[in-house]
């Protein structure tokens, strides 16, 4: 794996959200994703990065290209050491928000991506791992 195959974007403020989604778009473009997927990927990154800023203050987004035979995919990991999510099933429901959001970030992002996993612990924080395969 060349170093360029993995990018870490620190997330500390709202302008880092823009940086993360632009880096993700660039990486996906280089990996040959089409226009719709590029927008879908940027949108998904934006949502999980904003969750870090809004609900955990700081963390990072890790972008990685994965190869599986002839298939290529973009793996996005959003990691923070914030307060964690006490009830993940509840947080994954459309319209559930503990803030002033629409509560669509997590369930909507899951709909945008091909694979979506979330692990959370009040001691450790929250990690979202999601994947988009190139068509």
């Amino acid at each position, binding site marked *: 794996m060349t170093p360029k195959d993995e990018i870490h974007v620190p997330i500390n403020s709202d302008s880092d959200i823009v940086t993360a989604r632009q880096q993700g778009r660039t990486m996906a473009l280089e990996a040959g994703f089409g226009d719709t997927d590029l*927008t879908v990927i940027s*949108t998904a990154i934006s949502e999980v990065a*904003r969750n870090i800023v809004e609900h955990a203050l700081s963390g990072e987004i890790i972008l990685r290209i994965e190869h599986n035979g002839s298939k290529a995919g973009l793996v996005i990991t959003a990691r923070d050491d914030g307060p964690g999510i006490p009830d993940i099933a509840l947080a994954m429901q459309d319209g559930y928000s503990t803030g002033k959001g629409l509560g669509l970030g997590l369930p909507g992002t899951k*709909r945008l991506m091909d694979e979506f996993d979330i692990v959370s612990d009040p001691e450790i924080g929250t990690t979202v791992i999601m994947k988009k395969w190139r068509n």
Partner: protein
Amino acid sequence: MRVPILKQGKYLIASIQSALSDYELLQLRDDLAAQVGKYRTRGVIVDVTVLDVMDSFAVRTLRAIAQIARMRGAETIIVGIQPEVAFAMVQLGLTLGQVETALDLEEGLALLDDRTRQDGNRDAER
């Protein structure tokens, strides 16, 4: 970067020039809110043609802009939503609610003319 707001007759046109951070979006909301009152604006157009992402925060802020403008007597039209962006918004579950959209600036202006003319007629009937 601050979004330039152009005053054209009784309308305000905000043309987004580049990707916006949350802070810059809120700044646009506040700038528009201030100018709508100051210029007795009847219509606001927000041109989002260059945006390659409209996530939940952007949509929430655009809805807020339209609500604030409406309370001050102005209609808001969002123009230039790209097809991929529309697709991602739908998947995410986002809608613009009551906020009207048009294909481009020209159609947006025509729609505003239409809306404000109707209002004018209603005023005249009273």
